[in-house]
């Protein structure tokens, strides 16, 4: 049975191996370059004392690549579910070869178990290896530990990618068994896997552990803690990030800045504080806005979880994926026993 499972997986396995080797080589080479560039830059900027600016430049130059790597890794489990999971049973049902397989002297349970283990192991290993390499690659760019908590970043580093791959592959197998046709199963698997991949970290994760919310007055006292001010929807919403935020914490949500009556503060409601934006001398220092708004009893708040929640959340999100994978695998074996083909 092992021979058959491996033989059937041979083409896909070899293709995957080629891709993994190529991707690993790329990550290794560029990662090493990144590190040497970083080291060289550090030497230079320490001498001239321009490290803040240098870090910004370094960041700006390389973070887009990291984002792309993360994005590719983010969809990889869904792709694996599509290409390896969906056709596993569906193809055999379509072509009728299940009748050949199920008449050999191995039980159906063993047949599925071996195929599942072969393909599942390959999927988990491939995704796991690449995510570990990607995490290593991105280390020099990790200035702020809170970057780890981003939806895409969190799902493609440490434990979660292993569990996510396990889920995607078992999901694909189950959908293939359910739909009995490879091509529709591939489409549905990709859609569902991607949906779950987005849903779990975005919607579920913030509720897994308790968050802390701090509401504070916006004035010159908090001005030096602010490290980001964002205007959205043409200036009708203002967001202030920074005050009361512990180092490396995960910003779960930041609502728009509101005045005493609860209305959103905007460039229109308090034009005098925003006039500075249009001064020909250029944008005002970041501490100006909070100081200006301080006269108007304006409030902001931030909901966050501390940096220490990182690993518990990794375990919990992985556990969710693994539980889903177990559920879906259980269904597959149940389906097999019912012989409803």
């Amino acid at each position, binding site marked *: *049975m*092992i*021979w*058959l499972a491996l*033989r*059937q997986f041979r*083409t896909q396995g070899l293709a995957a191996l080629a891709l993994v080797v190529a991707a690993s080589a790329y990550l290794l080479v560029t990662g090493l370059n990144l590190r040497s560039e970083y080291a060289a830059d550090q030497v230079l900027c320490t001498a001239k004392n321009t490290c803040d600016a240098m870090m910004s430049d370094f960041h700006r130059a390389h973070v887009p690549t990291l984002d792309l790597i993360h994005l590719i890794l983010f969809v990889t489990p869904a792709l694996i579910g599509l290409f390896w999971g969906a056709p596993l049973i569906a193809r055999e049902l379509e*072509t*009728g*070869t299940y*009748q*050949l397989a*199920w*008449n*050999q*002297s*191995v*039980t*159906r349970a063993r047949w599925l178990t071996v195929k599942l283990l072969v393909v599942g192991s390959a999927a988990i290993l491939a995704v796991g290896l690449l995510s570990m390499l990607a995490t290593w690659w991105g280390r020099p760019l990790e200035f702020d530990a809170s970057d780890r908590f981003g939806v895409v970043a969190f799902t493609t580093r440490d434990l979660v990618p292993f569990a996510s791959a396990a889920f995607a592959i078992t999901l694909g197998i189950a959908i293939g068994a359910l739909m009995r046709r490879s091509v529709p199963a591939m489409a549905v698997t990709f859609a569902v896997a991607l949906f779950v991949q987005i849903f779990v970290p975005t919607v579920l994760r913030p509720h897994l552990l308790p968050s802390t919310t701090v509401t504070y007055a916006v004035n010159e006292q908090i001005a030096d803690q602010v490290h980001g001010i964002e205007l959205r929807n043409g200036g009708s919403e203002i967001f202030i990030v920074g005050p009361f935020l512990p180092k490396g914490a995960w910003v779960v949500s930041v609502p728009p800045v509101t005045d005493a009556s609860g209305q959103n503060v905007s460039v229109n409601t308090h034009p005098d504080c925003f006039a500075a934006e249009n001064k020909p001398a250029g944008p005002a220092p970041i501490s100006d806005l909070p100081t200006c708004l301080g006269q108007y009893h304006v409030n902001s708040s931030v909901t966050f979880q501390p940096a220490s929640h990182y690993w518990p959340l990794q375990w919990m999100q992985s556990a969710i994926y693994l539980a889903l994978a177990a559920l879906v695998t259980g269904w597959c074996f149940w389906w097999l026993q*019912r*012989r*409803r*083909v």
Partner: protein
Amino acid sequence: MTAVLQAESLTKNYGRRRALVDCTLAIPPGHVVGLVGPNGAGKSTLLKIACGMLAPSTGTIEVLGDRPATGPAQLARVGYVAQDTPTYSNLSVADHLTIGAAMNPRWDATLAKERVDQLDLDPKQKAGKLSGGQRAQLALTMAVAKRPELLILDEPVASLDPLARRSFLRHLMESVADNDTSVILSSHVMSDLERVCDYLVVLESSRVQLAGETEDLLAQHHRIVCTRRNAEDLPQGLEVISAEHTDRQSTFIVRGEPRLRPGDWSAEPLALEDIVLTYMERAADPGRRPTSADPEVGR
């Protein structure tokens, strides 16, 4: 001797569609059994249930004394070739034999190799590139080399040309002669079955219409041509299967003693195909069912 296939009131429903209704069979070992019936009569369903691909809705079935596909031991005793003889199109002939060897404890590698050589199959050829007849032979080799006690073949020659068909049957019979294997094979073409089968099961409208040794069936059925009369006027002990009347003549197909007592009729034996057709027509059109001269005549 345990029957190779024993079914009691076997029924299979797909939602509202009834594929098999109340089938009861006791097929003795050591025979080549023909399962005949029109398309959609339930032949494939019955065979799939027999080899464990499907579970019945109600009723019981035992194959070689065990419920189908209950474990590797039982699976090893039954060889199955599905309709359209599926094979792994990307795998070569040699790969298929390796699969057989790896997955079957009683695999006879010498036999498999001999057959492949005899059939002039290129071991390196991918199964998808073989002709229909060659694929069917490969599938048969896979089933036969497991050394099963029972071979179940679902319309194995339906899509083959006459040459390939004859070749397949020859190889099948050779295998039966060699290993004393029992065979259940389904077809809707009678001429193939007549040559090789010594036991017949007729399925029509999802029910078993007739089952028995071909010799007995041939001996027991007669065509009686006589002057116009009713079925009741025939002597006792004859089951009337079909009746046709013109102004002056009646033709009955009857089942009874192998030797008919002489009477005022002309009696002929029937060809197997005609017997089968008679039962199939009767089942398909119950309105034309004639009354039996003696309803208690056992089947």
